[in-house]
């Protein structure tokens, strides 16, 4: 069994993000393990509870959440990148935490931990 770390930098409006999910599924299907998926840059938008997609289109938030729940794969978001793009873990006046609970709030340090501990690092 080989361990993987994935880095995702594309938003849910970009089909490349679906590719990343399919690749993650294929890793698990082949019997390997993903130590964690790190969402950076526009990738953090995948964790936004506020994102709505029309009912005839794939909802990547639902898809990632389902992936997490089936596999227990940690999904990390870079909170600094998130704050620049409208994600917030703040519940004070005028704010509601909009980061989906299937994602873990992390910093760039987690990128280092994940990529240095996995056998394979793939950026998608």
């Amino acid at each position, binding site marked *: 069994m080989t361990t993987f770390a994935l880095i995702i930098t594309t938003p849910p409006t970009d089909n490349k993000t679906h590719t990343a999910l*399919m690749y993650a599924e*294929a890793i698990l*299907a*082949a019997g*390997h393990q993903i130590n964690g998926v790190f969402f950076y840059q526009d990738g953090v938008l995948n964790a936004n509870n506020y994102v709505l997609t029309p009912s005839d289109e794939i909802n990547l938030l639902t898809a990632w959440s389902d992936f997490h729940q089936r596999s227990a794969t940690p999904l990390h978001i870079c909170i600094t990148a998130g704050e620049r793009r409208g994600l917030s873990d703040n519940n004070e006046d005028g704010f509601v935490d909009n980061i989906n609970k299937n994602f873990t709030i992390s910093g760039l340090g987690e990128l280092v931990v994940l990529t240095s501990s996995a056998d394979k*690092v*793939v*950026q*998608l």
Partner: protein
Amino acid sequence: MTILHLVRTSAFTDDSLKQCLNLIASADQLFLIDDGVYNIHHSLIQGLKQPVFFLQQHVDARGLIAGSQQRSASYNDLVTATLNAKKVITWQ
């Protein structure tokens, strides 16, 4: 051990493939995914020494017909290619 190069954009629009080919070693592999599959008809990859793979689903989605010089692959093949390489460079 070799490098697996993932190319995700069309070389008709941007220079990712060109940057990749500048740095690909003769033992490396080139794997076209996403809009990178449009490159199956680009002159830059004709006659390359390295094997060129493409994700069949991504070719199908775009209505392309692959030539015989490149090799059809599944996501499982992409995982295998990752396992066989020492590291991966993603050009996007």
